[in-house]
């Protein structure tokens, strides 16, 4: 399997791409984001542009992210999420958690501190998948498969052609629904098993995020969760 430092490096690059997209999107949409706030936030657009530059820096020099830069980016994104509440979403939370863990990697002076930071990161990523899967089993529409069709039928989160297919073929919608639930809820089991099984699980999860990005237009989730998946593989590889 691939070496742990290499995996963390790739995770830092992917997270950097995510940070760049977050910064650029915030900078472009800033007048409207700011208009929803209780009052103006001067300098917000420039701060978002600086964040985008920092993210681009991580893509070119991932060691910058691992040596503390990730913590700076995590704090910046956290600030934007709080200041512009409720403009943030799950991808921001995942990106903050991943960046905090990655940023601590080369910064920690003792090996045991690095190990604690890495495992906190892995537990957070694992929790995100497990909780998402289990929460879906509590919603009748998810269990019946109807929720997938309805979400894709939304003008904001779905393409009309794909929505039509899922509305017409409820069996397919149910199969997709339970595949997603099973995949997400099984994360802790695969983390414990490790090895090739975890890599196969991660590949399936990546495909799921690709599908969500393409069909629902949620590209930021792809960057944030892909970085999380790479971290999961890297941390498991340290054992």
């Amino acid at each position, binding site marked *: 399997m691939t070496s742990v430092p290499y995996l963390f490096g790739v995770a830092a690059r992917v997270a950097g791409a995510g940070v760049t997209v977050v910064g650029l999107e915030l900078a472009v*949409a800033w007048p409207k984001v700011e208009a929803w706030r*209780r009052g103006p936030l001067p300098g917000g657009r420039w701060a978002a542009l600086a964040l985008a530059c920092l993210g681009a820096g991580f893509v070119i020099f991932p060691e910058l992210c691992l040596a503390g830069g990730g913590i700076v980016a995590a704090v910046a994104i956290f600030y934007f999420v709080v200041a512009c509440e409720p*403009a943030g979403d*799950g991808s921001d939370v995942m990106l903050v958690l991943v960046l905090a863990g990655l940023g601590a990697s080369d910064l920690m002076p003792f090996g045991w501190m690095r190990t604690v930071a890495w495992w906190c990161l892995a537990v957070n990523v694992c929790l995100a998948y497990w909780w998402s899967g289990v929460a879906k089993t509590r919603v009748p529409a998810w269990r019946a498969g109807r929720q997938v069709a309805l979400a894709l*039928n*939304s003008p904001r989160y*779905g393409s009309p052609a794909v929505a039509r297919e899922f509305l017409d073929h409820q069996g397919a919608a149910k199969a997709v629904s339970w595949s997603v639930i099973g995949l997400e809820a099984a994360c802790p089991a695969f983390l414990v098993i490790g090895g090739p099984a975890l890599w196969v699980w991660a590949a399936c999860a990546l495909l799921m995020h690709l599908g969500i990005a393409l069909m629902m237009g949620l590209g930021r989730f792809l960057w944030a969760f892909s970085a999380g998946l790479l971290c999961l593989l890297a941390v498991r590889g340290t054992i």
Partner: protein
Amino acid sequence: MIRLLGAAVLGVLLAVYAAYTALAVLACVGPVDRWLRAHRIGRRPIRSLLPFWGLFAQQFGMFDLDVRCRAVPADADGGPGGEPGDWTALTRGRWRPWSFLWRPWHRPDQTGQVLALRILQGGGQSAAEALRHTPGYARIMRRARIELGAGGDTDADDPIEFQIVLSRGHWAAVPPKVVFSSSTSTAAAGERP
């Protein structure tokens, strides 16, 4: 000495990250989750500071809300005077084939939808008068004023109204429905746009 100080600062950061992770895990347990929701840090419940991945299992309808606004001309006495202007959409980002790469309007749209949802959860049309004094209502009015070029001042007497519209999707047989109107005198809730 500086190295020791640096190690101490990093130790504190690590302790915060570890405590945050531990709380996030413990929040899966029902009684802990309820305790975290009941206790606050400042104005916020502690639970709101932790990740809530259950949102990925949200019910249909949450993100099918749209907000629109228009100017209502006022006469010298401050009452309605003349025909209102056209509706202007405050949430207009739709799925496009390139959305997976670039979707900057997603954030402002999401803000509008969540604020609209809070208005509906706060009682909707039946509690319209009470809702006028909530922060969410003021934020929608501020956004509407800026969109209509009237500045961000949230003076309640300014002649602007907004509506929350619920859509049922691409292939729905029922048309979008107005579920909240800030104006009690003109548009009624339940109106088909």
